């Protein structure tokens, strides 16, 4: 009957005008701010000219809008759409050019989108364009996560999310003065916070895909890390890098530093200068359980290499962390163990890989296969002086153990220097190192040691990997950096592979205290590998802890972890339909409760309207409907003329309703309540419609 819709005309006018309405200056400003906020996080990943150009386009549009505002009478500055189309095509060509002739790949596409939003913004006139821009910005907002999913990237997306909210709010506001931007931002902030619980719920419950939608980083640039060859100077170069190789969460106490040998590529082939690995197939043997075992979870940074690292020596096959497989430890669906006991992933590690591993600590390992021994026994080439020395020593020490001890003693007693800046060794590097320079890094020692053993007929090989690791006190986990890269040797003694670390003979503190402890002051040790506190290092450790937690608990919350969580709630295939039904029911109940709450609040807030409608309905039923356009006072006067005996009630109803609806009572809530009470009582006083009808008849 009356006032079915709250603002029929205004609402209709709004919808009519909405899509084609011209963007206001405020709306343009919000859209511009949103685009810039969405572009900025992506900008560092793009070629400079694309980043600058895309941002400039948005800036140009904002500048044009400003100059439009300065001359309100003049026609708005416009760039014809066809020109922009041509412009877009030219830009596409340039983008293609700067990505080496590709436009379809991920990075060129992102770059093109980056510029395209600017071009779209340049030609945006209507609200419809504005809405499209919001969609484009939402998409652009996701693109930085293709490169990095760090907490910093998430933080960088926040301004753009606020911008999105602000732009949507501005687009929705078709009439009336725009509120100050602070107010809008505060409102959007509150709304986002209100959305957090729902987002958290979806984070935990929304089914994840087992594999990402599109393969995350495949085209990484070369990463620093261990390679499958080793020549003099390679590891010392790597040691200058602060980059994190992997992080480890231990179940229980971490092993002492001297036992932290993270086994990586094993190199058995030597051409006189460079050690290289051998392509190997087949199953290696796991260390037999027994002795001090330690279980830990490695979060391996992407290295583009298949190496997996484990403490010497792994006694189980690695399992993906959070995997729900049976996990008997004998098999692994993503890694293999080679006969020389390297753990190798079936695919290069292109994103953070988390796996759980168990190792038996010790420097001795399972007996070798015949092939293994043969490969490690091949005589070393070149380096004649070394060979001569080996023969001389071998003559003095026919026993393998004695010989090895003699070599280690030589390293310890002669004036060998452990340094990060070894001299260049152009030819026969082992000879030059052993007899001329006597300065070297771990790879020199390992290489020379292994060559000496080989020349004496003892099967030996070089093992590369990481040695050490720093416990982050802020997260209780271990950080292993590239600067912890190390090389040591392995020799077959008494039919068992045994670890020998010649570096430890020269610089024992390298093993005990890490690289910085072993090197004299003045050596260019990477900053974060240095010992001691310092504010910067502390901050870095705190940041790293945050990063690690983020990786582990937010980014790492994948399909498998989700299933694990579900299982914790006893959610299996059998109970799933029930659970889903219950969830739907709960959701429905929640929605119904919400709707009821809103209705209740609406009624409560506008009780006056409800009461007024009730009175009007009663009078209409009694034969005196209110005209749709009729004001309350007029209607009351009409009703009083018909039923004079209720004139006081009609006046009370109309006046209190009019006061509630049209007077300024916002500052006096008590008065409002009094008015509502009066209105309610006056409506209560009115007899039912039936008796009114008879009374009305009598009055007439």
């Amino acid at each position: 009957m009356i006032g079915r819709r709250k603002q029929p005309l205004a609402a209709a006018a709004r919808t009519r005008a909405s899509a084609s309405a011209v963007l206001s200056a405020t709306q343009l400003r919000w859209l511009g701010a949103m685009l810039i906020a969405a572009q900025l996080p992506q900008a560092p990943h793009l070629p400079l000219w694309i980043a600058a150009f895309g941002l400039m386009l948005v800036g140009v549009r904002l500048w044009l809008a400003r100059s439009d505002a300065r001359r309100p009478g003049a026609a708005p500055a416009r760039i014809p759409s066809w020109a922009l189309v041509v412009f877009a095509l030219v830009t596409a060509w340039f983008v293609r050019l700067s990505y080496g002739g590709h436009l379809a790949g991920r990075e060129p596409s992102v770059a093109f989108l980056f510029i395209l939003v600017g071009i779209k913004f340049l030609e945006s006139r209507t609200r419809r364009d504005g809405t499209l821009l919001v969609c484009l910005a939402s998409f652009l907002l996701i693109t930085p996560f293709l490169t990095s999913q760090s907490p910093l990237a998430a933080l960088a997306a926040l301004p753009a999310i606020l911008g999105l909210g602000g732009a949507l709010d501005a687009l929705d506001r078709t009439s009336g003065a725009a509120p100050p931007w602070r107010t809008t931002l505060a409102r959007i902030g509150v709304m986002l916070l209100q959305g957090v619980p729902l987002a958290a719920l979806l984070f935990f419950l929304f089914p994840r895909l087992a594999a990402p939608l599109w393969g995350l980083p495949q085209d990484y640039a070369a990463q620093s890390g261990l390679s499958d060859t080793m020549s003099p100077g390679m590891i010392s170069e790597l040691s200058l890098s602060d980059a994190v190789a992997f992080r480890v969460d231990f179940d229980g106490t971490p092993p002492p530093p001297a036992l932290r040998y993270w086994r990586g590529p094993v190199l058995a082939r030597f051409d006189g200068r460079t050690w290289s690995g051998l392509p190997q197939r087949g199953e290696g043997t796991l260390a037999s359980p027994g002795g001090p075992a330690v279980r830990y979870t490695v979060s391996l940074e992407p290295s583009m290499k298949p190496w997996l690292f484990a403490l010497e020596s792994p006694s189980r096959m690695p399992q993906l962390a959070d995997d729900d497989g049976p996990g008997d430890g004998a098999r692994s669906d993503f890694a293999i163990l080679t006969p020389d006991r390297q753990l190798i992933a079936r695919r290069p590690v292109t994103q953070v890989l988390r796996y759980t591993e168990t190792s038996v600590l010790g420097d001795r390992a399972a007996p070798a296969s015949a092939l293994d021994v043969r490969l490690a026994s091949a005589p070393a080439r070149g380096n004649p002086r070394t060979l001569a020395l080996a023969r001389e020593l071998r003559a003095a020490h026919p026993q393998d153990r004695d010989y090895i001890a003699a070599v280690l003693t030589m390293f310890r007693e002669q004036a060998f220097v452990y340094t990060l800046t070894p001299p260049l060794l152009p030819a026969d590097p082992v000879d030059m190192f052993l007899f001329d320079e006597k300065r070297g890094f771990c790879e020199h020692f390992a290489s020379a040691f292994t060559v000496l053993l080989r020349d004496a007929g003892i099967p030996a090989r070089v093992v590369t990997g990481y040695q050490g690791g720093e416990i982050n006190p802020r997260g209780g986990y271990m950080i292993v950096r590239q600067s912890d890269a190390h090389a040591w040797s392995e020799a077959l003694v008494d039919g068992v592979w045994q670890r020998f670390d010649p570096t430890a003979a020269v610089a024992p503190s390298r093993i005990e205290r890490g690289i910085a402890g072993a090197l004299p002051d003045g050596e260019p040790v990477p900053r974060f590998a240095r010992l001691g506190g310092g504010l910067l290092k502390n901050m870095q450790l705190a940041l790293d802890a945050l990063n690690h937690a983020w990786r582990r608990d937010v980014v790492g919350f994948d399909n498998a972890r989700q299933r694990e969580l579900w299982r914790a709630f006893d959610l299996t295939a059998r109970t799933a339909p029930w659970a889903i039904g219950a969830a739907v029911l709960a959701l429905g109940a929640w929605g119904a409760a919400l709707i009821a709450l809103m209705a209740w609040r609406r009624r409560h807030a506008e009780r006056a309207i409800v009461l007024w409608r009730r009175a009007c309905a009663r009078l209409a039923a009694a034969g005196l409907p209110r005209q749709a356009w009729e004001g309350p006072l007029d209607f009351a006067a009409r009703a009083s003329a018909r039923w004079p005996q209720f004139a006081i009630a009609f006046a009370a109803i109309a006046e209190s309703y009019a006061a509630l609806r049209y007077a300024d009572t916002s500052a006096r809530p008590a008065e409002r309540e009094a008015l509502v009470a009066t209105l309610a009582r006056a409506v209560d006083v009115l007899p039912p419609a039936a008796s009114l009808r008879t009374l009305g008849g009598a009055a007439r």
Partner: protein
Amino acid sequence: MAQRLKWRISCMRPFPMSVRPAQQPASSTQGIARALTQLARIVVGKEEPIRLAIACMLARGHLLIEDIPGVGKSTLAQALAATLGLRYARVQFTSDLLPADVIGVSIYDERTQAFRFLPGPIFHSVVLADEINRAPPKTQSALLEAMEERQVSVDGQTRKLAEPFFVIATQNPVEQIGAYPLPESQLDRFLMAIELGYPDASAERELLAGGDRRQHIAELAPVADAATLAEWQREAAAIHVAPALLDYVQALLAASRGFAGAGSTSGSDAGARRGLSPRAGLMLIAAARAFALIAGRPMVVPEDVQAVFPAVAGHRLAGGARSGALQAESLLRSVPLP
């Protein structure tokens, strides 16, 4: 039933002070009420036009009366001026009237050997511009400009008009031959356009029996003065307008703009094609505020808007007060209260 009702009503708590008009007889309301009764004694049987005229004054607007001669236009103007204690002047607009006749002239004074400005009738507080459509456009626009600016420039000198300043212009809608009808833009300067119309039988009898109106006017004692009127105007401007009422006004404006298409029944009416401007909306609210003040209400209710709407919107929707008022009435009927 009635007994029970009386008892229950007596139990009701009294209305809060600020919204119940009867318990707060502001001095302005009382003064305005006295002015209204006094005016009603002079201009008999015309309560509604008088109310609108007072509202127009309170809203600081100017009034256009469209009617035939002899229905009391001058009497109303004179009585208004006398009741409110304002100075009154009348200008009969003719086809040879010059702007200087309205505004005033500078004449050379031989004794002081300087020009002396003789202010024209426009420097009075209430100016009756009779038959405004008889004067040439130049004179019309001089008057209308003064109405808008509330000041005139003569010989390079700006002179302020009286405060309050209120123009009642009349025009005869019947004899338009040899007249210069006011263009729409000039019509827009008038807050309201009303008709007085013939008095009804009893009022006419009283009029005929009552004797000389001029005599009555001369005997009137003013109930207010310029300062009081200014105070009332300030009060009117401060009357509360609720968001719900603004919704209603916006709906009216929107409907007036859509009216052109729907109201093609009076196809010849060029004016009907124009909707109400935002300024018309502002004026509508100002007039409704004044009307609420007259009723002694601290807020504007839709009834106030509806009461002034035909007078405020009529001449803006159509060229004349009569056809416009009809349009405005039907417009009011078409817009439901939000």
